[in-house]
């Protein structure tokens, strides 16, 4: 297998112009390398740019700056030279399963569509195989999306994404539109598919408990940047960045003894506006550990003392910061 990462982004920025000279910097310099075969979670609070990042990776949103490469080839090159090849390599699962299916098409027609576009023969057989893969009965074929439940619709969305047998799946909050009771089933489905098909999955989520359960690695985003990346266990148990600590301390524990004594970091205030991020470290306005250097110098994503990568002056492995 190739040794380049499945997805690599370097310095990706996505800025939206809201008024002359004023930009919302939804994604503002993201470096990410996701090795093939991993289940990577991206977490962060609302408005931090996770969804924009996901849409940029699949090309629904063009990057203002920076480079994205998929399987070692740049996204712009893919899109220029081999759009269909890219579609067979990487697919997307939407947040809203109802909106992502045409309300006029039956489930069979929706599942057939990618096969028609790519001229795949023996469509009926493939569609049935897809139904089995995501655990839907044959009776679903003739139905319209609105006569299925939310969980079933999302299964259809996943089946359609898998129709072309891609190796990379980008999922934009695939669980947030679902009932809690259904979520567990879809989580299990993702874990199952990843193991069975050896997929590289990038999942945007704000349900931290879910990320902890199925992702092997995780990145934490804050205000358009990645502040910490690393193996899930390590990030959840021993976060290097103060923002990750605060975010992850919000996850409740199922053990009541731990839950009652659990230390919670409550952040004051709202995140600053992404159109005008603070100078220095972006987190300095809310960080409990802020010191002088944070206000002047922006930390870069470097190997942290805890392992993994973190963008914090306090945790850089190469230079033990002194306060």
């Amino acid at each position, binding site marked *: 297998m190739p040794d380049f990462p499945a997805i690599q982004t370097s310095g990706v920025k996505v800025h939206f112009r809201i008024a002359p000279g004023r930009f919302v910097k939804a994604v503002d310099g993201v470096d990410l390398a996701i090795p093939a075969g991993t289940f990577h979670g991206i977490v962060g609070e609302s408005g931090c740019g996770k969804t924009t990042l996901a849409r940029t990776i699949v*090309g629904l949103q063009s990057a203002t700056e920076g480079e994205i490469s998929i399987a070692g080839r740049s996204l712009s090159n893919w899109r220029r030279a081999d759009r269909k090849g890219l*579609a067979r390599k990487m697919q997307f699962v939407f947040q809203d399963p109802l909106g992502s299916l045409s309300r*006029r098409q039956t489930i069979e027609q929706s599942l057939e569509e990618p096969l028609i576009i790519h001229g795949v023969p023996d469509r009926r057989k493939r569609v049935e195989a897809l139904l089995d893969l995501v655990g839907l*009965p044959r009776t679903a074929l003739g139905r319209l999306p*609105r006569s299925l439940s939310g969980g*079933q619709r999302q299964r259809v969305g996943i089946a359609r994404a898998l129709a072309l047998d891609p190796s990379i799946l980008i999922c934009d909050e695939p669980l947030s539109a679902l009932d809690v009771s259904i979520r567990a089933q879809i989580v299990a489905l993702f874990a199952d598919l990843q193991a069975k098909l050896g997929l590289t999955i990038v999942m945007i989520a704000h349900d931290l408990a879910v990320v902890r359960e199925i992702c092997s690695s995780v990145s934490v985003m804050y205000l358009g940047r990645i502040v910490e990346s690393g193996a899930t266990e390590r990030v959840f148990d021993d976060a290097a960045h103060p923002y990750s600590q605060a975010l992850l301390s919000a996850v409740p524990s199922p053990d009541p003894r731990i839950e009652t004594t659990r230390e919670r970091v409550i952040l004051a205030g709202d995140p600053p506006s992404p159109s005008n991020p603070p100078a220095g470290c972006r987190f300095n306005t809310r960080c409990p550990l802020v010191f002088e250097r944070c206000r002047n110098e922006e930390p870069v994503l470097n190997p942290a003392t805890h392992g993994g990568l973190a963008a914090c002056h306090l945790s850089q492995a190469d230079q033990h910061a002194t306060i």
Partner: protein
Amino acid sequence: MTELLKSLRTWPWHIVAPVLLFVAVAVLAPWLTPYDPAAQDYMSILQGPSWAHWLGTDYLGRDLLSRIIGGARVSLTAMSIVLLAALILGVVVGSLAGYIGGRFEVVMISAIDIFLALPSLVIALALIGIMGPGYWSMIVALTLAWWANYARMSRAVVVAELRQPYIEAARIMGANHLHIFSRHILPSVLALVVVYASADAGALVLAIATLSFLGLGVEPPTPEWGQMLVDGMGYLEDNPALVILPGLALTLVVVSFNLLGEAFALSKVPRPARGLTLSRRRRDRAKEEAARAQVEARP
């Protein structure tokens, strides 16, 4: 196909039937008319109803029944041509404007707005003034007076549909513009525009009659209802049927097309849930629930 047959039973037949009757009469006109609608017979002028002429004759001895039936055919033909041409023009221009966007859209919208700002009959009259009266200039004038409505609607549907995530899904699947347009956009556009056009058909029949009444549309030997009204007016005292019957035919056709359009619109637009509607909704919801449960019960 079976779906279609099933839905056929739930159609409002009392509303569809008059329109179908009009279409059937128009299509079968050559076999239904007892006389040639243009044939003059000076031996029987301005006669009342008789066995030979069921509805009587006009001032040239032409059979009134034949002329009304023939008029239906002329109205239907002219109306269909105008409607089809206006639909094609409107859908193409509107959809392209919505799909391409940018400066092209701005220009197209402005053009559409200019046409919409003026009453369609005024536009038609102006165009006939330029082209001179006649059957084909009436068709062209009415088409140009009518297309803007459909263009505006098509554009609105396209813009709304393009924002739907399922279009983005198709893009990610590698679909090209033609695929997205023909498979996703066009069906949504037609679903709305065709319904609207069915309500417009009545207004068009009336417009054709109006222009012919003014002597700007269908030319004399051809039977046409609007024209028959003018012809009959001079003989109102001798044979009022010459005015009443074409007028009645015109009214019935316009009303039945309007009812059809309304029925279409009502089945599309959600109504406030009250009384009977509420109980029907409850029934529908129960049916949907049952369908869902059936899918959920895995084999």
